[in-house]
């Protein structure tokens, strides 16, 4: 009952929220930034909220998406749809790569591995500066108009136009993700989150499902990165460093849950906080640190039900060592 009400609210709230956002914020550009990160939150939430996997590697897929789109646009001269496709698909590929290794471990080791891989990709991006531009970044990322049938072109050069474009993609991503969550596949992810041992005992190939979750997450996060590059006109190391992974994670934790409003809220909170605070206190990440400490110790209930359960859950009884390693 509560669920249906929430879903209806989501559907109605969607166009309203997205229409209002640019007027609540100082500029269309900042609203676009929120939307782009909200898509990344969707990707992170699929892993964290639905599958129960805490990944410190979301920045990898975001950065790969950004660089891929940037490369496709600036070096290969491809159009925007191709840029986005490149970003999303390469993000997915990176996720499959990282996932294939990280999933071999559970719990803490898994988290550790995602962090280690985040470092790997950062160093690779830093090292191969012929491709990525290193510290300077991949500059001149274009925002080419989209060719429409009939000879016309959709010009996304202006901030409002790009905002509308991103908002449309966000809606697409959100409802696409919802469909996945509501499928048998989605219900299995929840089962894995709830009791992985039981899920395996009942016959699910847990590894396969986790890997698929990674793939979806990479796809979404890569798409977000691919939007970020033409948004700024540049793809830099900050899109792929650990700070980005942290930021996405924090947005997801704050926003929580599977609601549209939640993913927007988390991104909104972080973007606004960082831009507002950084104006007069460059060390504002310290507050984020305190926030994390507070969240983990106090586990706010209610709104973020799944988070609370995740934070307070004890190790499952009847857990047997995994014979398959």
């Amino acid at each position: 009952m509560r669920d249906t009400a929430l879903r209806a609210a989501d559907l109605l709230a969607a166009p309203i929220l997205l229409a209002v956002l640019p007027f609540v914020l100082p500029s269309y550009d900042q609203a676009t930034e929120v939307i782009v990160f909200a898509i990344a939150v969707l990707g992170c939430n699929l892993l964290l909220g639905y599958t129960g996997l805490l990944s410190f590697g979301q920045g990898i897929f975001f950065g790969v998406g950004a660089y891929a789109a940037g490369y496709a646009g600036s070096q290969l001269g491809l159009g925007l749809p191709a840029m986005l496709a490149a970003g999303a698909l390469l993000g997915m590929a990176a996720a499959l790569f990282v996932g294939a290794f990280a999933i071999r471990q559970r719990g803490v080791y898994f988290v550790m591995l995602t962090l280690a891989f985040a470092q790997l990709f950062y160093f690779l991006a830093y090292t191969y500066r012929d491709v990525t531009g290193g510290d300077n970044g991949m500059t001149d990322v274009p925002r080419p108009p989209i060719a429409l049938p009939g000879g016309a072109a959709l010009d996304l050069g202006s901030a409002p136009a790009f905002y509308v474009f991103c908002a449309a993609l966000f809606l697409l991503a959100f409802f696409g993700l919802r469909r996945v969550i509501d499928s048998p596949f989605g219900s299995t992810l929840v089962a894995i989150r709830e009791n992985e041992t039981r899920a395996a005992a009942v016959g699910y190939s847990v590894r396969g499902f986790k890997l698929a979750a990674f793939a979806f997450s990479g796809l979404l996060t890569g798409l977000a990165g691919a939007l970020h590059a033409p948004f700024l006109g540049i793809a830099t190391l900050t899109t792929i460093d650990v700070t980005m992974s942290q930021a996405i994670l924090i947005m997801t934790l704050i926003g929580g849950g599977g609601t549209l409003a939640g993913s927007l809220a988390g991104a909104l909170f972080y973007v606004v906080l960082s831009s507002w605070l950084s104006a007069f206190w460059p060390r504002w990440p310290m507050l984020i640190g305190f926030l994390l400490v507070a969240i983990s110790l106090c586990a706010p209930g209610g709104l973020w039900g799944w988070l609370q359960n995740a934070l307070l859950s004890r190790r499952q009884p009847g857990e047997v060592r995994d014979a398959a390693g």
Partner: protein
Amino acid sequence: MPQAEAASRDAPMIETRGLSRRFGDFHAVSDVDLRVAPNQVHSVIGPNGAGKSTLFNLLAGALAPTRGTIAFAGRDVTRLPDAERVHLGMARSFQITSLFAQLTVRENLRLAAQAVMRGRAACFWKPVASLGEAADIADGLLARLGMQRLAGLPAGTLAHGQQRMLEVGMCLAARPRLLLLDEPTSGMGVDDLPMMRELIRDAARDHTVVLIEHNMGIVLTISDRITVMAQGRVLAEGTADQIRGHPDVQRAYLGTGALS
């Protein structure tokens, strides 16, 4: 599922040869040869530390053996992971209740039913409701377990006895050939026991059941065959009457008359 009784009478549902598992220097299970005939209730009993649970985990695939082989319906499954064995027709319950506690009773059963529907379980673009078969199986089991009114409650909120019943229910949801039940009555109150006994007896009509149990009342009344374990080895095997009078078995239980 009626099977050709004559043809299957010779082919054991489970056959282990020299099955062993050690942890460092500790030999939890040593050299166990077990044959479970199809459509029978085969109980495994023994004092604590006899290796029953380890044997179970070996059969289910949650643990890999250090020596020996396991064959399921004539097929070697020794190296097969637990999730795969489910698809061959093996389902297990846990001694310490392990359900999807936050999910509803119905969803627990539905998930268990869905798991064996390989391709359809992985479908990510159709809504869950489209997988009606799993939902139907869940509803059928709810009726069979008498839990229809509990269907929408989180599984973790059920009374202990009901949770134990649900554990068995989840096994049945996979429509297996073999049920591995690990102390299904563990912690159940005396009033709930008859319900469980009837459930197992009912299940035994269409399935092979391997049971670990401490409750002798249940073991002696529903088992077709009993294997007694002690210190990781098979001590004795036979029918209920044979086991009841077996001197080694009585000694293993310290002659407390626990078998009477």
